[in-house]
């Protein structure tokens, strides 16, 4: 946050002046740009090399979160914003994980009941449903 302090000091010279903008040397944008390309290639290779199972999911999610994090932090300047703004913006979407968990649980249950009640009759007399 030292970066931000420097810029605030700049702006306070003229009261009411706009923040001269979070100007950073261009190099960082090119580096992150390159990093995003590398991560995208890596994501594509996960499919190209036919990774399967848990490793596939893990890699997909890790690369996705890294790319998302870099875009939000650097390209969208979050790294240099006030902490209050960062938390106000980042925490609500994280709470979506709860909805994701509920959706996954509910989906699995639906899949299970569809298999139980609508699937082929693999046993002799089907047991009476208890629910």
């Amino acid at each position: 946050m030292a970066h931000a302090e420097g810029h605030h000091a700049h702006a306070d010279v003229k009261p009411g002046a706009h923040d001269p903008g979070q100007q950073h040397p261009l190099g960082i944008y090119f580096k992150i740009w390159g990093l995003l390309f590398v991560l995208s290639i890596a994501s594509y290779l996960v499919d190209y090399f036919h990774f399967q199972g848990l490793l596939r999911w893990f890699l997909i999610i890790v690369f996705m979160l890294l790319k998302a994090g870099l875009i939000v932090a650097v390209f969208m300047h979050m790294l240099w914003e006030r902490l209050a703004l960062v938390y106000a913006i980042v925490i609500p979407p994280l709470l979506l994980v709860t909805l994701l968990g509920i959706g996954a649980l509910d989906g699995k249950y639906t899949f299970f009941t569809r298999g139980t009640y609508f699937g082929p009759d693999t046993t002799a007399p089907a047991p009476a449903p208890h629910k």
Partner: protein
Amino acid sequence: MAHDATGTAASLPQAEGLQGIVSDLSSDQRAFKNVPWGKPMMWIFLVSDTFIFGSFLISYMTVRISTTEPWPNPSEVFSLTVFGTNVPLLLIAIMTFVLISSSGTMALAVNYGYRKDRRTTFILLLITAALGATFVGMQAFEWTKLIMEGVRPWGNPWGAAQFGSAFFMITGFHGTHVTIGVIFLIIVAMKVWRGDLDKERPGFLTGRKGNYEIVEIMGLYWHFVDLVWVFIFAFFYLW
């Protein structure tokens, strides 16, 4: 940092960490001081848009988990045959690179905007818009190809019927966001070109004075569009 102002509109010394958050939000004053108001407003809009795309992606997850029909294999569905070989996800990979490049040019445009380099900012904004339009064109090509192969919201030749509706809803909303972004990029580029931001000329719809922050705010929207694509790419095409 010395201050004459006694009002709370001026910046206050920023405490570190949690204390900083507490002082930002307490004492009956404006939150997010020293941040031009347009920025938090765009961020708050992006949070709401995150919930919209989040609900689409989570409901896609739910129908995919719960369907008893096998889900079509995206590697096969979205592959292209070029020069005789079948390359999986080729168009999607190109679309991803196009969008990431447009994010890069957008970040550069914001930087040059604050340097008040109008010409470079204008060119970078137009390149960003062109890349975005290219993306939409490729997505339209993808839609046409799939529709011709028989994908409908209610069924497709390869597997679970929900594949089509999930695909068209999610990519349709995303493509619409990209298109709107392209239009706004051109508008902002014109304002930069005409010097409206240097002269702080009032805007057409608002009457408020414009300045180079609107390039950064436009950038936030554009990076969000790229961000959503990162999630769609991971969850829909790769999974």
